[in-house]
């Protein structure tokens, strides 16, 4: 899941300052799960913005709310078509993907990000999320006992641990586990410690051509036999 955090209210207010009618657009998938832009957060942001307006005595903005199931699919975004005619700007509480997808679809309407997209991660417990994947495109989890050193080691090294490990914690923060100690312990449990003795060559750090695209469908030429 993509994890994000709502932007500070002040930043949001600065972004929306030039516009009057603003659609607060929530996302019903990842942003709802990570409590950054679901229906409840949209509604709370709406209240907060109204309060800020009341407090500062300016009544320039009017807000509307809407939640899409997912902001990253064109069919869902189609549902917005007749809701944005009258809108000066859309404040998307979707992740960075959602913001761009909305912007792509509505070329004449400014689309503003309401959240800072943070990472790909998982829920640790209620109200706590941890990063787990860097989307490096070259997964090595089979060799590292299902624990990703790219994400979870501060340095992202492939042949750890480094000298900065102390009592199982990382020198960067004593609250953070050393990923390589975790890997070692788990390999030990799995009786695969020999994997620690191997040398892993550096990853291919050559610039990955961006943006990446994944094509799953096969291009089949439409022929006469297709009926």
């Amino acid at each position: 899941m993509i994890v994000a955090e709502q932007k500070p209210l002040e930043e949001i207010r600065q972004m929306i300052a030039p516009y009057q009618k603003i659609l607060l657009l929530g996302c019903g998938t990842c942003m709802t799960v990570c409590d950054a832009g679901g229906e409840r957060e949209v509604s709370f942001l709406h209240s907060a913005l109204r309060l800020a307006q009341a407090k500062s005595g300016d009544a320039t903005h009017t807000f509307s709310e809407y939640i899409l199931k997912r902001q990253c699919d064109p069919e869902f975004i189609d549902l917005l078509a007749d809701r944005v005619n009258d809108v000066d700007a859309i404040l998307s509480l979707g992740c960075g993907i959602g913001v761009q997808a909305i912007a792509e679809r509505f070329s004449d309407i400014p689309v503003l990000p309401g959240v800072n997209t943070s990472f790909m991660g998982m829920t640790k417990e209620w109200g706590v999320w941890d990063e787990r994947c860097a989307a490096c495109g070259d997964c090595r989890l089979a060799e590292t006992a299902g624990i990703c050193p790219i994400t979870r080691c501060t340095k992202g090294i492939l042949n750890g641990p480094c000298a900065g490990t102390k009592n199982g914690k990382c020198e960067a923060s004593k609250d953070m586990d050393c990923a390589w100690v975790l890997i070692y312990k788990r390999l030990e449990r799995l009786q695969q410690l020999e994997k620690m003795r191997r040398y892993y060559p550096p990853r291919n750090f050559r610039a990955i051509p961006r943006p990446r695209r994944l094509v799953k469908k096969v291009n089949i030429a439409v022929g006469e036999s297709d009926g």
Partner: protein
Amino acid sequence: MYLSASNDAYDYRASKTPKSSLDHSLIPPCQAACPLHMEIREYVDLVAQGRIMEALQVIRDGNPFPSICAYICTHPCEEACRRSQVDKPVAIRALKRFAVEFGGDRRIYTEADTIHSDKVAIVGSGPAGMACAYYLRKMGYPVTIFEAHSEVGGMLRVGIPQYRLPREILNTEVQRLTQMGVEIRTNTRVVSLDLLSDMGYKAIFITIGAHQSLRMGIEGDDSPGVIDGATFLREVNLGLKPSLGKRVVVVGGGNVAIDAARTALRLGAQKVTILYRRSREEMPADPAEIEQAMEEGIDILFLVAPIKLKRRNSKLNMTCIKMELGDPDATGRRRPIPIKGSEFNKQVDVLIAAIGQAPQMPSDFRLRIGRGSTIQVDPVTLTTNRAGVFAGGDAVTGPATVTQALASGKLAASRIDDYLQHRYPQVDRETRVGLTGDLLPKTIEMIKTIGRLEPPILPPEARADDFTPVELVYDWATAISEARRCLRCGMGAEITSQEKCATCLNCLRVCPYHVPYLDTNCVVQIPVEQCLACGICVAECPAKAIVLRKPYDRRQIAEELDHALKSAVESKSRPFIVGICCQYGLFGTGALASLWRESKAGIWIIPVLCVARVETDHMLRPFEMGADGVFIAGCGEQCARENTALWVRQRVEKVRKTLAQVGLEPERIQSFMLSDTDEDSSTDLDQFIAQIGMLYLTSTIKQEGKS
């Protein structure tokens, strides 16, 4: 099109989203067990909130004579109460009595206009007849009750002893009937139904009760000194004082036996013994009554039955035999079997046989009779074999409870109405389903045990001499504490549309009772039979996909806020402080209750049904309307639920962050958990109010400085 309402969201499934006005609650077990299907959960909840008048209204909607039931109902609801899976059932009948007495039922004036011309005759003035008369009269029929005895009330008058049902209660209800215009003819025994038809009655309701005692069928059971239970109670209740001698034996194990024994004691018998042929476990009498009888010094000999009586020297020589229990019989109770050679003799002055009763119908009624001399009726229409003649109450069921009789009278009224209006019988259209299933151990484990609070009763030494009522009424604080024990079965949370649910699993994580679960299709389920309607998951669902099943619960906080904020803005009093307070606590005994009573100017109290239901939106809203401060006050240790304070604090912190970002002091919102014992928390609250006053003053001075 410009939209501002948030509830428009997700229109692609709007057609499937239920309207907010729909009641999705299930019928709780207490209501299902009540013959009158009273809205017990609702009135208990209203009592817990201190809304006694409304509780009484709910009670009156379902029960024509709640004050009678408040004294003598056998409360099958309490037997069904699921609280007994945690500790003990909620004391529903005692709570009803509290609502009836404190809500002022006596002063309620009922009126009825005659809108129909068809006259209805009711034969018998017991609870079934009275209920039928009440409802028919309310529908606008001219109603006449015929009563053979000199006084109205049937078994309520001649069967139930005064220490259980004070006669002024019964008299009030009879007066109410007269007030409504019901004609009551006492000392009038109806011997022929044809005569009633000739008198112009278009429908007749036969509710003659079951007053004929069954005989024991043993040698000497007609000797002098043997009296049957019903006759004995009737004589006492009609003001006669039968002479009993010193030693009295009562035979039987039902409520009549207990009533007869306790009455005999009150008439001065020195030694009263009850003989029952089975064991205490099978005894049909109300356990509390058995308990009270034993407290008063009445002996109960179990597994004993008389087999022979002989009158000698104005004493009764009684031969008894001991019993043992065999296999269960048709009623499911174990059959008593005499133990050979265990006979023993006992000498008594009077024997009261209370082993059951049957209706005694004048033969000229020409009604079809079934098992145990009861009148045969169609169970749905209550019609007999004669056109226009209906029957109900004990005369149809055999001896039963007052609530069953009231229910049958109520049903008869609507069936007679159908008959007179030439309608097909209108069967109740209850669309809600009943709640079934037990609480799971993991849920029970998390429910706070709170002991059942019994209403005070007179000490045994004070009650055995006269007929004053034994059970007293709750005081305000005890009633509210008891009512809060209700588990609110069947009105919990539900996911109204699974499409809206993001399956974030927050509800699983926040539920204090471990109720929501993920099914094998990865769909979140909130089993209705487990949920206790605390509302925490509703407030924590990021998709707002969870709502409470009762429309009132869904709207309550927002509506109360709207109302109070509107008045507050109009009043222009400053500083303007909003207190969102637990309504249960407001009427409790703690600091919160004093807050309500001594509510200061400028403080607007929003009563909520548990602070755990207060969402962050609700907390922010008053500031938008210009409030200087907001406090949330829970009932603290008095709270019947778990974790409420934790969730309130979480949300308050979030609101504080937002306030700071808007440029308001975060300390303008604070939560308090007040309790009985904690003096400090109410001082803290006073300090908070003073502090908000100061903040208001400084901001005003700053403003003036600027201008």
